[in-house]
């Protein structure tokens, strides 16, 4: 009774999987009867090869014959009639090259191509009437105009009912089955194993191992041909069994995999070139270009790359410090530091130094293993000589603590005056954490879960003397990180704009806050192991908008030109052509349909759905693999004759994946616009192409005020104008 209830409660998919498994096993017996014999032969070959290998190692003559070079005794045959032996192959090779350039062979091939073309033409002729019916239906409905808003036609209602009854449940069942197979992976693993056996894949693997051992002994390249021959013989059962359509599907899937992998490799290559470019820049960089050239995109992209560079550099320096004292129990030190960080007694680089110095003092007072993280200092020593200096272990620990702190900071290292999203994933199993800083292939679920936003830049943290807020609690907090400041000129101004400010003013202003001194001294603030973990990336339309004193510190990068968006993924030209053609056709007929009709019909429903799917495929491909090549000119802020040209790559997926918004300050303008009671429809229009004096008055322009008051000599003709 209990067993019956158990079977009744089982998901019906278990029975389907069981049936598939039984069918697969039956195939092993009836369709692939030679698979077991081939497997036996391959193990025999492996055994004899092992014997040969052992004899070779102990320098003895093998007592048995190596069978790996022998042919199978099963009736499996070579596909395409390839020659059996290397000698026969050499003869066939000569014949092949003699045949390939003959007229008869070429004519034969052309007739073969013609046969294929004939099949294609016949298929087109069969399909053509369907299109013809579509064209006739469209032309019959060409003049239909209605305002039946969102009313479904009869055929569409019927179609939706059919889909609801059959397609939707089937789709749901398929998705549930996929989830079922994921939850009960043993079913497909078992089936996979049976088919691997059926297709002789197990035999191929064992034969390869057998030949490897045999090859070490005989070192005969001639025998490799026999193995290739045997490989094709083993594969013949799979080649014969799987239908051509499936092979075509497999080929398309494989091409897609290969081209995507090439695309990702190219994108990573571009990113590495960007990092090389950023590595050559000084601490402060000013990106310039006219409106809409992508200055903010550039500093955001550079900021994201620089954050990764900092993490990588910290890791590299951690490893270097580790190698100075290879037998130091670093994990104990890290655990102590982690506890201090969680207690918030360590929260910046200065407190890292304080942490190690207090430990050093305690050790100096009473040296013992317990006070140096269980390090066996008597055995391994407390110093390291790098031929430049003798490094004390406590100095190494001080560096290690600071680097570890920079490396393990969970929030973003970016501090900016607009919001930037980062999605580096910290992987931690409780030992040494690792960062997944991949920009292109991370799983979307990980991106969602690990997204962080940049810190709000409190400009007081960069002011050395006076701050805008007296006793600002964050004023001294800045030590290291990537600072992004968009529209720096509007914040700092240049000499002309700052003339109104004085050094003696009691309140902070761009002249007396010593911001520039901070930039000049910043290397002293955020350097560990002689590497500065600070970068300041700014943008402005013209370099002269920022004061010369600050600009002299920076490299000015001018964005000169941008290429059209290309695709890093190859072999997309045919899809690109077809999808663009289809989209142009659709957009024309759809806009016409929307103009004339308010109802929904079945043909447009299907057309619209197909166009949406294809367009989204096209868009997604460009969103993932799209890139643009920027030509930039780098000018040294101190010496404007020092000009270099370089390339910078903008990658759509990296830079626009919800990273930032190009209208970062839009919320301020939104509030301003909400204050207004008027919109564009309420603004007065010109009555003719020649404006009247009244219309000029409405412009409230300085020029018009001057002109009209001059012409009318300040009389009543110009009432209501500003003096």
């Amino acid at each position, binding site marked *: 009774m209990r067993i019956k209830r158990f079977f009744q409660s089982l998901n019906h998919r278990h029975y389907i999987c069981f049936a598939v498994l039984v069918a697969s096993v039956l195939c092993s017996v009836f369709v692939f009867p030679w698979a077991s014999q081939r497997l036996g032969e391959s193990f025999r070959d492996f055994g004899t090869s092992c014997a040969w290998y052992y004899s070779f190692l102990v320098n003895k003559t093998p007592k048995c014959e190596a069978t790996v070079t022998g042919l199978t005794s099963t009736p499996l045959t070579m596909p*395409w009639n390839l020659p059996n032996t290397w000698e026969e192959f050499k003869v066939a090779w000569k014949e092949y090259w003699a045949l390939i350039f003959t007229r008869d*062979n070429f004519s034969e091939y052309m007739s073969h*191509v013609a046969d294929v073309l004939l099949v294609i033409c016949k298929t087109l002729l069969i399909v053509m009437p369907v299109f013809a019916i579509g064209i006739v239906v469209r032309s019959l409905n060409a003049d239909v105009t209605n305002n039946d808003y969102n009313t479904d036609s009869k055929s569409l209602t019927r179609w939706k009912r059919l889909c609801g009854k059959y397609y939707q449940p089937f789709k749901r069942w398929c998705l549930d089955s996929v989830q079922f197979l994921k939850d009960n992976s043993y079913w497909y693993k078992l089936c996979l194993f049976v088919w691997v056996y059926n297709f002789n894949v197990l035999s191929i693997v064992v034969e390869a191992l057998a030949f490897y051992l045999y090859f070490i002994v005989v070192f005969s390249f001639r025998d490799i041909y026999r193995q290739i021959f045997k490989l094709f013989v083993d594969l013949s059962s799979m080649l014969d069994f799987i239908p051509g359509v499936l092979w075509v599907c497999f080929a398309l899937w494989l091409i897609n995999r290969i081209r995507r992998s090439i695309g990702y490799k190219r994108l990573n290559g571009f990113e590495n070139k960007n990092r090389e470019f950023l590595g050559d820049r000084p601490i402060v960089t000013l990106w310039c270009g006219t409106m809409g050239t992508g200055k903010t995109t550039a500093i955001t992209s550079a900021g994201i790359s620089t954050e990764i560079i900092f993490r990588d550099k910290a890791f590299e320096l951690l490893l270097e410090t580790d190698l100075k004292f290879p037998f130091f129990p670093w994990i104990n030190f890290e655990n102590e530091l982690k506890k201090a960080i969680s207690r918030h007694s360590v929260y910046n680089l200065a407190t890292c130094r304080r942490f190690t110095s207090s430990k050093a003092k305690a050790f100096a007072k009473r040296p013992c293993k317990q006070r140096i993280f269980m390090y066996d200092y008597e055995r391994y020593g407390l110093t390291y000589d790098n031929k430049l200096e003798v490094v004390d272990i406590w100095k190494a620990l001080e560096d290690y603590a600071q680097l570890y702190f920079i490396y393990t900071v969970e929030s973003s290292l970016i501090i900016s005056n607009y919001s930037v999203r980062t999605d580096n994933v910290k992987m931690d199993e409780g030992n040494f954490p690792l960062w997944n800083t991949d920009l292109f292939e991370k799983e979307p679920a990980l991106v969602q879960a690990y997204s962080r936003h940049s810190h709000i830049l409190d400009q007081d943290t960069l002011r050395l003397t006076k701050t805008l807020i007296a006793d600002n609690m964050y004023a001294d907090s800045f030590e290291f990180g990537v600072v992004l400041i968009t529209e720096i000129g509007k914040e700092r101004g240049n000499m002309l704009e700052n003339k109104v400010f004085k050094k003696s003013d009691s309140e902070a202003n761009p002249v007396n806050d010593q911001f520039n001194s901070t930039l000049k001294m910043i290397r002293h603030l955020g350097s560990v192991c002689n590497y500065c973990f600070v970068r300041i990336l700014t943008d402005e339309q013209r370099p002269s908008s920022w004061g010369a004193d600050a600009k002299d510190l920076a490299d000015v990068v001018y964005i000169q030109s941008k290429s059209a968006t290309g695709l890093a993924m190859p072999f997309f*030209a045919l899809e690109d052509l077809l999808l663009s053609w289809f989209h142009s056709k659709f957009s024309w007929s759809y806009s016409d349909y929307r103009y004339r009709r308010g109802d929904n019909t079945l043909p447009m429903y299907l057309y619209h759905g197909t166009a949406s799917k294809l367009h989204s495929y096209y868009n997604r491909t460009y969103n993932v693999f799209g890139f643009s090549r920027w030509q930039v000119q780098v000018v040294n802020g101190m010496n404007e004759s020092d000009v270099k040209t370089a390339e910078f790559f903008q990658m759509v997926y990296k830079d626009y994946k919800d990273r930032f918004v190009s209208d970062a300050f839009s919320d301020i303008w939104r509030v301003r616009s909400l204050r207004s009671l008027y919109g564009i429809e309420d603004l007065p229009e010109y009555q003719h192409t020649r404006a009247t004096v009244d219309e000029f008055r409405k412009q409230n322009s300085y020029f018009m005020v001057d002109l009209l008051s001059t012409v009318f000599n300040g009389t009543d003709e110009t009432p209501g104008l500003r003096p």
Partner: protein
Amino acid sequence: MKNTVKNILKVLLGLFVFLLVDYFIFTVGQL
């Protein structure tokens, strides 16, 4: 337009390479 011409050229090149490879494979069967 520039991209379209480029794509057409790429497709033609792809077709040529495909036919060439197919010709080589076809000749194997003729031996």
